[in-house]
């Protein structure tokens, strides 16, 4: 397959790495779900 040159390969690989890093970052920074029980017993207060 000659349509994909080394230059494009480098760009594609770097994009995949960058997207992966961003996903990891977002997951790490995402706020955790509340541990409250969801009912009105007041455990989230």
């Amino acid at each position: 397959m000659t349509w994909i040159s080394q230059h494009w390969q480098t760009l594609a690989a770097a994009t995949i790495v960058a997207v992966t890093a961003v996903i990891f970052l977002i997951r790490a920074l995402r706020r955790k779900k509340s541990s409250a029980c969801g009912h009105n017993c007041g455990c989230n207060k």
Partner: protein
Amino acid sequence: MSTGENNALPKVALVGHPNVGKTTLFNQLTGERRKVGNYAGVTVEKVSATIFTPHGHQLELVDLPGCYSLTPESPDERVTRDVLLGDFAEEARPDLIINVVDAASLERHLPLTLQLIELGLPVLVALNQVDRAEAKGLRLNPQVLSDELGVPVVACQATSGKGVVQLKQALRFPLPPAAERRWKGSAALEHAIADLSKKLEALGMERPEVHALQLLGDTDYRVKVQPKLPREAQIAAREAAAACIKENLVPEDEIIKLRTQTIRRAITAAAHTMGNEGETLSDKIDRAALHPIGGWFFFAAIMFAIFWSIFRFAEIPMHWVELGVGYTKDWVGGLLPEGDLNSLLTDGIIEGVGAVVIFLPQILLLFLLIGLLEGSGYMSRATFLMDKVMAQVGLSGKSFLPLLSGYACAIPGVMATRSINSNKQRLLTILVLPWQSCTARLPVYAILIPLLIPSVLGQTTMMFFIYFLGTGTALGVAWLLSKRIGVGEAAPHFLLELPPYRLPDFSYVFRHVLDRGLAFLRKAGSLILGIVILLWALGTYPKAPSGEEQDQFNYSAMGRIGHFIEPVVKPLGWDARLGTATLASFAAREVFVSQVAVSFAVEEDEDDEDAFRAQIRTAMTDSRKPDGSPAYPPLTVFSVLIFYIYALQCLPTTAVVQRETKSWKWALAQLAGMSLFAYLAALIVYQGGSLLGF
């Protein structure tokens, strides 16, 4: 009527003791259509399915984790209690409970039935295993039992499908009303319950009487839930408890006494012994399986068979996976010309994910064998035998099998800890399990041990020493950690039901194996995929101007880190090459071999592994320091060996530990702790050995 979060179907929950036949009944009622997930925030499996009543109404049937009572001893039991009380986030309270009861052991099962009735929910009792009860000489009258309990009772035999139609008929709409509590306490107790209910109702709490009863009669609920209640409710609960003490009344004791009396009355009325109660087949097998001496031989034989099967039979499909990964790599590599994308796909993603997926056969086989042991009833006996031994180091009898399977691979072992009831014992088992020498360490040992000892006998003795050291450390650290982790947590009561021996429910076992396998693959396709991409980038960028493989690694971010940490590894007797190889094998320890080969420019020979290893050993032996002394004397090699015995060096294990503990804190603490332990052990070996003149 409460509704599930994602649908408006009425919910029916199956509740009962572990091993009572709930899952078999679930399969009978649903035709084995089911959806498996997890309860939010905990590693407790949620199994549910949609079924139709005889009149065409749709219902959601949920198989709740088995529990002995509503006073939980394990995370599974706590989920059941919280779901039934309506205290579980994102999980609606059921509209009806089907309580599965062992007809042959009513005295042990009916306390839970009474607790369920006290929840104020409609209850339907499925009197399971009536055939076994009859074989034991019991004649039961479901109608009388129904009158005594105030709820419908249906006799059934889940294994043969007997009574399942009647059970479905009983699910007719409208659902039966909730029954009244079956006992009446002393004036003081009733007053305390009523008074607390009124106060909780005034505070706007749902189901005030149910919560009042839990707060007065369940210590675990008081300890775990009361501190989370609004301040006024906490004060009301404390006042109610103080009022009881003033009256010389322990509500918990009185409630248990009243339930026991109610159960005795119900059993006397509904069950009669026909007088032919004799020794069952299970009793006969147990005479051998639980014999004080013979039982251990029986146990050892079964465990040896499992261990041997994991090694022997998993090897074949593992080889297929390896071949598949190789072919895929060649095929994808052939589609693209040389370049970064080609390298990312082949050397990064396919090889990295393939190195994890290769463990799938071991995982499937281990869960198949565990499923067969559980389904046959022997697992409870094995736990019973091992509990006393494992308790010496703070572990559970159920820790034994995960630890044993850790010799094959830590990943299925960590996943198998789900059966351990106590949170503390489960965490301890997970934390020390990777010290069991797994098969992925063998290629590293195969390089290092012959450098230390040339004779086959000596090498075998060394292997034994390695296994002994790993296991001994795991048990010793478990004992030490048990004094530190969860100190305040009450020791779990060892309550174990020995179910009768029976043929396992094969379809359930196979489905369970499939679920575990899919869960593992999902992990490999998400978190592990991400990690291998990032590790590939660290080993690839920045690019070396020369383009040589050896130069490239040294030039890359990972290679630079390797050089940067050289002063850290120097006290271990290592040079930069060993430091870099150890760093590169951070994600998978077996990478050490290929990385050392790259460092010494040894060409990998997939057809002759022995010759390849011999070449690496020769290169290491011939390697010299600038002063002409050997670069890798025996003490340095021993230091590396000790490091690899103790270091975690397996990112998939870290990912699975995170999944099982639901905590990055424990997963990273384990990684850091084991790495530090390995470093210190290697340091002591090298520095101590140097001082002693080795």
